[in-house]
């Protein structure tokens, strides 16, 4: 009996330690991110990405953090350095998981960071690139709530830029929220739909 227990304990230990490394790393990175230690979080994702060479999620999150950070930057050299780094992560994620709608909409967000910085300079090329990205993402995953929300937000941004009403896009946001609430995710650390944020976006849209 004891032998069995020992054996189980032994095997379990090995399994735990094997699984822990990835989970521990990912959990720690999310924890750092949650505590607003974005540089450390991004660096940890970068390290995990270097260790887990088959998994697109770590570089995807490393890119996401860099892109979100880029929106606060006021100096162009820094912006480009940061987004170039983010692009490398996204390229890595993309080569591990081609035609992934989550990565496509992240790429669109990266392009938005350029446009937000200088619309006159980057607007023309980036808005065309994004149109193509959303088209592809929709073909791949028409019912993905993050794709729907991301596209709606981008359309709202364009409508505001041109002084038009954002109302036509509210329906899509509502649809994304409904789908997001129902969505079941079975891959660990897969991007989740943030219902709270979506509801805020919907409120802005209604205005």
């Amino acid at each position, binding site marked *: 009996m004891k032998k069995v227990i020992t054996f189980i304990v032994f095997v379990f230990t090995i399994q735990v330690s094997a699984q822990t490394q990835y989970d521990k790393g990912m959990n720690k990175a999310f924890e750092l991110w949650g505590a607003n230690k974005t540089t450390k979080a991004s660096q940890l994702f970068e390290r995990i990405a270097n260790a887990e060479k088959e998994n697109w999620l770590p570089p995807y999150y490393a890119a996401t953090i860099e892109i979100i950070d880029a929106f606060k930057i006021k100096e162009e050299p820094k912006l480009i350095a*940061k987004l170039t780094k983010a692009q490398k992560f996204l390229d890595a994620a993309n080569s591990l998981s081609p035609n992934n709608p989550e990565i496509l909409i992240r790429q669109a967000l990266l392009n938005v960071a350029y446009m937000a910085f200088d619309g006159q300079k980057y607007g*023309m090329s980036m*808005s065309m690139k994004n149109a193509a990205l959303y088209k592809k993402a929709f073909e791949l995953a028409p019912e993905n709530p993050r794709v729907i929300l991301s596209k709606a937000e*981008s359309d709202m941004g364009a409508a505001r830029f*041109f002084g038009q009403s954002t109302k036509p896009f509210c329906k899509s946001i509502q649809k994304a929220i409904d789908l997001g609430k129902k969505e079941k995710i079975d891959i660990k650390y897969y991007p989740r739909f943030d219902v709270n944020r979506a509801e805020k976006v919907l409120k802005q849209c209604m205005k």
Partner: protein
Amino acid sequence: MKAPLYHQNEKNTLMKTILSILLILTSFFSIAQTTVSGIVTDTKGNPIEGTNVYLDGTYDGASTNAKGAFSFQTTENGTQTLVVSFISFETFRKTAKISALNDLKIKLREDVNTLDAVTINAGTFEAGDNAKVTALKPLDVVTTASALGDFVGALQTLPGTSTVAEDGRMFVRGGEANETQFFIDGIRVFTPYTPTTNNIPSRGRYSPFLFKGITFSTGGYSAEYGQALSSVILLNTIDEPIQEKTDLQFMTVGVGVGNTQMFGKNSLSVNASYINLAPYLELFPDRNTWKDPIQSLNGEAVYRFKFKDESLLKIYGAFSYTDFDLIQENINFSNGFRFGLENRNLYLNGSYKNNLGNGWKIATGLSFTNDHSNINIENDEVVDNENSAHIKVAVKKRFSNRFKLSFGGEYFITNFNEDFNNNSNGAFNYNFNNNLAASYVETDIFFSKKLASKIGVRAEYSELLDEFTISPRASLSYKTGESSQVSLAYGRFYQNPNNEFLKFYKDFTAPNTSHYIANYQYVKNKQIFRIEAYYKKYNDLVKFNTEMPLPTSVYSNLGSGFAKGVDVFWRDNKNIKNTDYWISYSYLDTERDYRNYPVKATPNFANTHNLSVVAKHFIKSWKSQVGFSYNFASGRNYTNPNKDINGFLNEQTKNYNSVSLNWAYLLSQQKILYFSVNNVLGTENVFGYNYKNTPNPNGMFERQAITPAADRFFFVGFFWTISDNKKDNQLNNL
């Protein structure tokens, strides 16, 4: 016996348990912990905070603290690779036994490839969104009020250009228009402008939407480019279209349609336009008597194919047909001066780019131009036919971020034929072949993030002139502060004489220039300031001894000249909300003795002072962008025989002033209504004077002012994009 057995059994089990526990423990303890530590600084020894330090392929790592120090435990053993990465520094790697990765002193080298590194930029303006310093943004070409959607017009708002409004071509730093050469994807364009006649400005032949970036060099350019005495304009076409769409354009002067199709790795874009000025001239007659108003038919197609290995094949073809016939008032012809033209132009450009790996890149290209004109001048009929081709191979090798080498070879072929028919004198034929081989080699060296240089040399052999020339080029840039840098450039440039001479005489040497340029640039936070001083020396310019180049003229290479000046550029997109503006000022001092000049003089295409102010303001609530541009140029020289019968370029016209406005209204994201007025104030500008060949009874020569055909020009257009995706918009056509 039972007991001991039991005992033994128990002991046995216990032993095994202990063993197991030990095993488990050792499985923990055998993972010996090693400490990896050190300090990270830049090359000057300043600590770098926040660098990511880790063992490659493991989870073990840390960030450096404010002192640049890091320390972390690892269970890895054996040989490992330590990676130190930080934004805008080159990533550091060290492979060693884990025990040796302790107390390290790591110096990170700055990444010279970043935006804040020094750039070699003397003489050069960049347009497009991947330039480091963008003087003109992609939208500027089509939203500059005075440019009327012509990229050449937009470039003329930059310093270093003279205002020769009746001509429309690029006159750079005291140079003639033909001293500027155009290249599409590195391949020469032999006929970049639309055909026209006296006093009607020509435009760039190619649609601005085909290009993702434009580089305008006012001097001191790379050894890759030759056969241009003053300036090169490099146009790069879009590598791949983003989506399928159809564009429609309805304008007061014509209609246009464009379509892009994508299928797999292929894509095809087609544009066509038909321009006819008859209806416009009906509404707003100008000073000319039009027998046939200008009409032109243009078609362009771009085919792109992306290979599996990411190499790219582009084939670009453009065809245009233009005709017009008019009578212009001329003081020496009582019934006016007739000029009729029928021109067709075919341009083909194929290019292939490939990354060979290991830092090698190859770009090859081929262009072919056929330009055919039927010209009627009074009683003369001239038929010109020019076939030109350019073949080029350019190779680049990147040894590191800090050292790059490029070299290549090219061959130009020009075959020119002219049939001249005069009612009374009969027929003549002139022709020549102007073939030229060239090769170049150039290095880009970054000594540090602050100091960089480019050194190259170009060799050319002209078969027609049987002449071999060597042109050295060099430039150096040094970053003086976080946002400022100074640059110097020197170069020697050769260009064969123009067709107008070569068709009569071939025993020339190539005219040449030497450029000396010093530049200071300050770029910060959406503001650009640059000032550039230059000196350009002209040697071996063509001279002849008749009123016009003729078969009987005496030709020589005894001409010479100089141009010197200062160009200032300021662009600001920060201080006024929703407003973007730039100011260009050029000071030019130039004199030359060439053509049939009796003395050294400032040519009539040079203005001493040139000023351009361009502003754009976006009004959200009106869904509109309004644009303004103001152009000022000081007077140009003309010859006044009344002042001095032997005088030459001895008087100046009054100053040139022009204010242009435009207004783009977004009906929706895909529909734009566009209005523009050039010279809205109707200022009567004078470009020079024509004097009568013979004096009147009082001994005075009567004169006629050379003025634009119309003072104002109005333009209304409606642009509509149709695509599957509603997001694509007419901003591109704004």
